[in-house]
C-alpha cells in the first residue's frame, strides 16, 4: 500500500491541534471544492484534502494513522502487525471475511487498496452499517444485519468533441471504484466499460448511467454514475446550448451587393444567401443546423458576418476603391456630432 501524508496534504504539523487542522481543511476546501472552485485541478486537490480531513478530524482514526509511522509520499509500506486488531479494521466487512482477518490473522494483503479505502473501512467497522463519510455504509455485512444496501453513486467527467455531441459517441470510461469482492474483501478494481452518449449532449450537461456506481449489497441496487459532459473547443463552431455560432468572413462588396456563399455546417456545407447591405455583426440564421435536441428538433446555426478588408491591394483594386471613395456619398459616421465635440 502506498503512503499518503495527510498532514502535508493539509499543510499542518504532525502535532497540530484539532482546531488548526479544521481551519486548514476549511481554507483548502474553500479554495479547491469543485462546487465553488474554478481551479481546473481543484477536484483532484480537494479529494486529497478531504481524504486527509476525513481521517485526521476523528481522534481514533488520527491515532490509527499516526501508528502507521511516517513514510515518504507514495512509498510502499505495511502497517504494524497488530494494527488491524487494535483499531478494528475489518469488522465492517462482517463475519470474519473482512480485510483484518482476510488471511487468518497473520499479515495483511493490501494490494489494490489505498489508504483512503482502509480508513473508510475502519469507519464502516465502527459505524456498523450506519454510514461513514461520503457514501459509506456500503459494506456487505456489519452489525445491521443483512438489510439491502444501495451502492454508492459516483461522478465522473468526459470530454467530447462537437462532432461526438452532434452524432452521439461511444466513450471509454475506466473507473477504479472501491468495492467488495465475493469474499467480502474491499478492493479497488478497474472497471473499464464503454458508454454510449446519446446525440445532442451539451456543454455542462449531466448524464446518468444507471447501475454503474458502486455495487449494492444484500439485494440493494447498484449505485449510479453521473457523467459531467464538457465539450472540447471546435476550430470553427462555438456552442451555446444546442445553438452553434460560426464566424463568417465576407468581402466588402459581398456585404454591400449581396452574395451566395458556401458555409460549413456540422452535416456538410450549405449555400447561404447574404442579403445586400448586410452589416458586420449581423447574425444569419440557418434553422435546425445546430446540435440535435433530444427533446425534438435541433438548435440553429448562426453565421456572424465579419466584413474583412484585403490588407494588400494590387493596382487595379486600389484604383477601384479610390473611384468608389470619390463617387460614394455614404457616411458611416453620420450620427457623430459635427465639430468633433460630444458635449
Amino acid at each position, binding site marked *: 500500500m502506498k503512503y499518503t501524508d495527510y498532514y502535508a496534504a493539509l499543510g499542518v504539523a504532525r502535532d497540530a491541534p484539532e482546531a488548526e487542522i479544521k481551519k486548514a481543511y476549511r481554507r483548502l476546501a474553500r479554495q479547491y471544492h469543485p462546487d465553488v472552485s474554478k481551479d481546473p485541478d481543484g477536484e483532484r486537490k480537494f479529494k486529497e484534502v478531504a481524504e486527509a480531513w476525513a481521517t485526521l478530524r476523528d481522534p481514533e482514526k488520527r491515532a490509527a494513522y499516526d501508528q502507521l509511522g511516517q513514510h515518504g509520499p507514495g512509498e510502499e509500506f505495511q502497517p504494524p502487525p497488530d494494527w488491524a486488531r487494535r483499531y478494528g479494521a475489518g469488522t465492517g466487512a462482517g463475519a470474519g471475511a473482512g480485510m483484518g482477518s482476510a488471511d487468518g490473522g497473520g499479515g495483511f494483503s493490501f494490494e489494490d487498496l489505498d489508504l483512503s479505502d482502509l480508513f473508510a473501512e475502519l469507519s464502516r467497522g465502527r459505524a456498523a452499517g450506519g454510514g461513514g463519510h461520503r457514501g459509506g455504509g456500503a459494506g456487505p455485512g456489519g452489525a445491521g444485519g443483512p438489510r439491502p444496501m444501495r451502492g454508492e453513486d459516483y461522478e465522473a467527467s468526459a470530454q467530447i468533441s462537437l462532432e461526438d455531441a452532434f452524432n452521439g459517441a461511444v466513450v471509454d470510461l475506466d473507473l477504479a471504484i472501491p468495492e467488495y469482492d465475493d469474499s467480502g474483501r474491499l478492493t479497488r478494481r478497474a472497471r473499464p466499460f464503454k458508454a454510449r452518449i446519446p446525440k445532442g449532449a451539451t*456543454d455542462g450537461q449531466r448524464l*446518468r448511467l444507471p447501475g454503474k456506481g458502486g455495487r449494492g449489497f444484500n439485494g440493494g441496487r447498484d449505485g449510479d454514475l*453521473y457523467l459531467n459532459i464538457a465539450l472540447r473547443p471546435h476550430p470553427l463552431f462555438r456552442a451555446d446550448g444546442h445553438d452553434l455560432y460560426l464566424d463568417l468572413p465576407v468581402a466588402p462588396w459581398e456585404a454591400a451587393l449581396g452574395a451566395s456563399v458556401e458555409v460549413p455546417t456540422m452535416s456538410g456545407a450549405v449555400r447561404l444567401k447574404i442579403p445586400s447591405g448586410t452589416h458586420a455583426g449581423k447574425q444569419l440564421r440557418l434553422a435546425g443546423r445546430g446540435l440535435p435536441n433530444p427533446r425534438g428538433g435541433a438548435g440553429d446555426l*448562426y453565421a456572424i458576418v465579419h466584413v474583412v478588408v484585403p490588407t494588400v491591394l494590387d493596382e487595379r483594386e486600389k484604383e477601384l476603391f479610390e473611384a468608389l471613395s470619390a463617387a460614394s456619398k455614404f457616411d458611416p459616421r453620420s450620427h457623430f456630432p459635427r465639430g468633433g465635440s460630444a458635449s
Partner: protein
Amino acid sequence: MKIEVTEIRWVDQHGPCSLHELVEASQLSADELRELVELGVLRPLPAAGSGSAGVEPEPRFAAECLVTVRAVRRLREDFDLDAHGVSVALALMERIKTLERQLRALHAQLPDSMS
C-alpha cells in the same frame, strides 16, 4: 476482458422521483429533505390529482432534483453547513451558473478573435 456498452440516459428521462428516491441518491434523511422543501431549495411538482379525502398525496420531484440533493449532501458534509447555509450557497451557485450561461452565450456570439 469483456467490455460492455452502457446506454446513458439524460437525467430528466428518469421521470419524477419520490422522496424515498431522493433519500437514496443523497443519503440525506427524509426530515432533512423536508426541511429543504420548506426552505424552497426543493420544489415538489404540482400534484397530478387530488388524493383521497384528507390524505396528502406523496410529493413528487423533477429528476433534476437528484443533482440538487447530491450537491446539498456535498455542501453539508464538506463545508459543515446547516440547511439554511446550504440553501444560501445553492442560491448563489445558481446565480453564478445563470451568469456563466449568459457569459457563454455572449462569448459564442463574439468574433473568435475577441472572445
